[in-house]
């Protein structure tokens, strides 16, 4: 079905670092969504993807990205941004000296003319990001919520 209607294809991309505590939340959400959504969406766990996000979203109808965020709000807060027509808040999403953050990668895709028609970004406010730690309880709770929200998002696309 996805191949027959490429304009409505949905790709979900979970971002983060699996070994850095709450920073893994986007990856864990993607893993859950792959089970829950089956063939209703393509799901990718893109650990530290950076500029490769441009390639991952190329050619799909709807891209939904899930990443750790840090804006000073309490851990577990869920942010939703629509990046389809304008830039989202730079600075909230993690990046490194080599990996573009999600907001920068989306702007690069926009400049290069390969941004999908609909791009939704979920950011989950993190607490601890120390190496080797599990998710903190608030972020684990937010993980459940964000999985539900993304499923609703997908259902709306298919409706």
């Amino acid at each position: 079905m996805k191949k027959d209607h490429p304009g409505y294809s949905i790709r979900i991309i979970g971002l983060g670092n699996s070994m850095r505590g709450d920073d893994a939340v986007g990856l864990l959400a993607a893993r859950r969504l792959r089970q829950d959504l089956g063939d209703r969406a393509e799901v990718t766990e893109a650990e530290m993807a950076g500029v490769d996000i441009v390639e991952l979203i190329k050619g799909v109808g709807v891209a939904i990205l899930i990443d750790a965020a840090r804006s000073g709000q309490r851990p577990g807060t869920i942010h939703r941004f629509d990046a389809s027509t304008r830039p989202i808040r730079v600075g909230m999403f993690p990046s490194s000296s080599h990996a573009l953050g999600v907001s920068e990668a989306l702007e690069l895709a926009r400049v290069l003319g390969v941004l999908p028609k609909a791009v939704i970004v979920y950011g989950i406010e993190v607490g601890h990001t120390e190496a080797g730690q599990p998710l903190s309880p608030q972020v684990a709770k937010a993980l459940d919520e964000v999985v539900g929200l993304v499923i609703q998002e997908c259902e709306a696309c298919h409706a």
Partner: protein
Amino acid sequence: MSEETPQMRTIAVDLVARVEGEGALRVTVKGDTVQDVELRIFEPPRFFEAFLQGRHYDEVPDIVARICGICPIAYQMSAVHALEQIFGIRVEGALRDLRRLIYCGEWIESHALHVYMLQAPDFLGYESGIAMAKDHTVMVTRGLRLKKAGNAIMTLLGGRSVHPVSVTVGGFSRVPLRRELEGLKDELLWARDAAVETVRWISGFDYPEFVPDYTYVALRHPDEYPFNEGQIVASSGLQLTVNEFEEHFTEHQVTYSTALHCTLQGSPYLVGPLARVNLNREHLTPLVKQVLADQGVALPLRNPFHGIIARSIEILYALEESLRLIERYEPPPMPSAPISVRPGTGMACTEAPRGILYHRYEVDGDGIVREAKIVPPTSQNQSRIEQDLRLFLPRLLHLPDKEAALECERVIRCYDPCISCATHFLNLEIKRERGM
């Protein structure tokens, strides 16, 4: 003689606006003199050294691949070669070629990202790769496609490009069919031509005059440009086996950083593409030499800003080498050499995109890691970066604080440091102090 106390300046500039920082530069200036340069870098390998203790040797390649999102193959290659030294295994023939090929993929990917997205904007006057992409869409698209060609090699051989999973002690968990490798050829031929254009483009940039007196350090192999094997050589004439690394290179703690600084007999030194190109120039291909001659680029390159030229040379070399290795590939009879575990200590050094990466493991009779030591290229270049900033800063002191900080960031970027490759959160901050 003036009685005045020279003025102390303090400047704090967030170079990358992030909430939590793990990398920072602090510069103290007194009058016209640079007093202190302190580069603080968070180093993920320190955590991993402890994390590896008590793990079975066959888990090591997957664990170390997670240290760095941009150079997982380097960590895997240093690890498997060190462990193979303990078990008395030598990987030869097609398996050796495949390891060289997957490393080529990583160099292409890592260098293309740095050349096009991170450093070219500095020379063309843009604040970022995104800003540059608006005016230079064709160039940036070419750079991303080059990077993707490297990704494709890593994905085919490694199972995936980030955190590849197929590298094992003894070889690979799966090796490709001949036709699978041949499937890469068309894109790699395009990429080779694009790499020639890249060298031409990069060597035409304007570079600041800056020639510090360096000791270069790289691997050197008698027959080939180095990836996984060779002696450690320095431009001072020093030649060592990899097992002698720790006798000459020492890590020491500095008060301002959790990262260790590594020095060669007490002095800073440089590893990475510039060092590699200079110390191995006889192994560059005729095409590389021709393109450099056409552009009037003479080796050795002694200016750290020319690191971007060295990277573009290595992209071209790695593409030619990939095509050569694919051309002669015959699948090996077994994907991996058989292993019989025995206790011992093994060391290896391989050429990560950013320079030599040293690993040492001690393993017991059950194949359990008792001790691990990892010396990444960035910790080796750290003292050299500080030294170069100290030399470069006097020409920046007349600038407003913000511009001077940006210039410092450009100097730091020449070394392509992995400031927080594996941390995902980065706050690179430069401070200049001003006060009485």
